[in-house]
């Protein structure tokens, strides 16, 4: 009985959407949860010594001061430019690399090991060395972001390729498609949901990578504001970039989810979305 109901709801997506609209929307629940959490933080945080903790209104004041002095905009630009470059490169290199490693046994045997090992790489230990090579500016930050985010993207793509049903490859072969065409027209679209999941995982790692790089260089960007405020015991100011980064990472994750729904709409319809 349960199974037949599920099947119906998949066959008629419009009906399913209508049924869900009648319940409380997701964003409302998320917003309510956020309001309660912030209120609790404000209430409890005021009793804490400002060196050991902070609270939303104090952070808001610190935010306003940082924004007015222009310090925040400069730091954001200094952080986001290498972030975008490193993350973009990670996608541009990681996806094709994962595709070919997953598709061709020879390449998998030859290069798979580096990808797996690279994923477990204790990158923080290598940052000082990277600084020696690349200096203290843009290049080293972009490199650290690239190295932290390329592996989850590549590994997920690789796994996704291996999960492509053999029968879909057979469709391409039976239509006399070349290997390159099969890769581009069948394997890539079939792997998209995995690729997007990899990019999503990489967002968190990339943000951490950027901050770690800035901690070490301690000259510019949001990471520098964090570490310099912490050294001056200015906890409220320290929280400003931390929260900005959290919001940024959440926005990016949401954006990637939105892109995923656009480029792979079939996935949401096939996968079970019927949750309690």
């Amino acid at each position, binding site marked *: 009985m349960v199974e037949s109901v599920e099947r119906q709801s998949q066959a008629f997506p419009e009906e399913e959407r209508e049924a869900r609209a009648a319940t409380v929307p997701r964003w409302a629940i998320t917003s309510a949860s956020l309001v309660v959490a912030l209120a609790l933080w404000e209430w409890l945080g005021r009793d804490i010594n400002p060196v050991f903790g902070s609270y939303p209104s104090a952070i808001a004041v610190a935010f306003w001061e940082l924004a007015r002095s222009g310090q925040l905009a400069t730091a954001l630009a200094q952080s986001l430019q290498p972030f975008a470059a490193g993350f973009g490169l990670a996608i541009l290199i990681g996806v094709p690399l994962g595709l070919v490693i997953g598709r061709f046994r020879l390449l998998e045997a030859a290069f798979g090991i580096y990808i797996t090992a690279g994923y477990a790489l204790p990158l923080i230990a290598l940052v000082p060395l990277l600084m020696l090579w690349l200096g203290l500016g843009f290049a080293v930050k972009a490199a650290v972001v690239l190295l932290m985010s390329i592996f989850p993207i590549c590994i997920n793509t690789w796994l996704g390729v291996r999960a492509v049903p053999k029968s879909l490859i*057979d469709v*391409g072969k039976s*239509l006399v*498609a070349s290997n390159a065409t099969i890769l581009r027209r069948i394997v890539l679209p079939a792997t998209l949901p995995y690729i997007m999941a990899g990019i999503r995982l990489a967002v968190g790692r990339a943000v951490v990578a950027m901050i770690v790089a800035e901690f070490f260089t301690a000259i510019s960007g949001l990471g520098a504001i964090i570490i310099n405020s912490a050294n001056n015991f200015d906890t409220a100011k320290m929280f400003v970039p931390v929260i900005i980064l959290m919001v940024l990472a959440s926005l990016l994750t949401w954006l990637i989810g939105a892109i995923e729904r656009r480029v792979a709409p*079939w996935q949401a319809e096939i996968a079970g979305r019927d949750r309690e």
Partner: protein
Amino acid sequence: MGEVRLIEVSKRFALRVGGAAQTVQALDRVSFEVEDGEIVSLIGPSGCGKTTALRIAMGLESATAGRVLVDGVEVKGCGYDRGMVFQQAELLPWLTALENVKFGLEMKGVRGAALEERAMQCLELVGLKDSRHRRPYQLSGGMQQRVGIARALAIDPKVLLMDEPFGALDAQTREGLQGELLDLHRRTRKTVLFVTHDLDEAVLVADRVVVMREGRVEEVLTVPLPRPRDDLATVRGRTEFAETRYRIWRALHALPATAH
């Protein structure tokens, strides 16, 4: 023209069972032919090698020994002279029905207005013109398989190779599609090699039935039912239907033929 000839086709492959290598003889000197415009069913229990034989005929797998000829030309890999219809339709889920049909044509190098026109024509042939913008998950199993057939027909192959195309469908949908296949065959006169494990289906659609068992051709029977057979309800009531069905059943169970 579209004549398929399997000559002494054998297929062996190695299988690893709990560390020990085992050789499996999937096909053992299989020979039969499908004449131009004929429908031949290939029937047998699962594991008898019927799908392997079909995949070798398509060029998706290679034979260990023997040859497959299509109009006298030896099969070496896939080609546009053969169109494959898969067990589960195997439509590309990110494409609409129309785009799935176009996909095959694009692979063949058809471009521009001819592409659109031919794809629409084939969808119309299977009665899905109005559902052309739906994606596979918005189509029923029967509709998906009709798109699969349209995709194979679009490249205008000489031979249609069908791998248990209706096996995953419910009984009523299956009967509807069997009728549609016969209707399509009457209009296009394509040669069809049709793999199935369903006795009724094997008799209903075919001119001849090749019965396979354990990698060998057990028997080849002619179906003495007249065409057109679009009205399957009447065909089912005929004594020839029941008799042929019973003869195949005996062959499947390796019983000697009885004298009727």
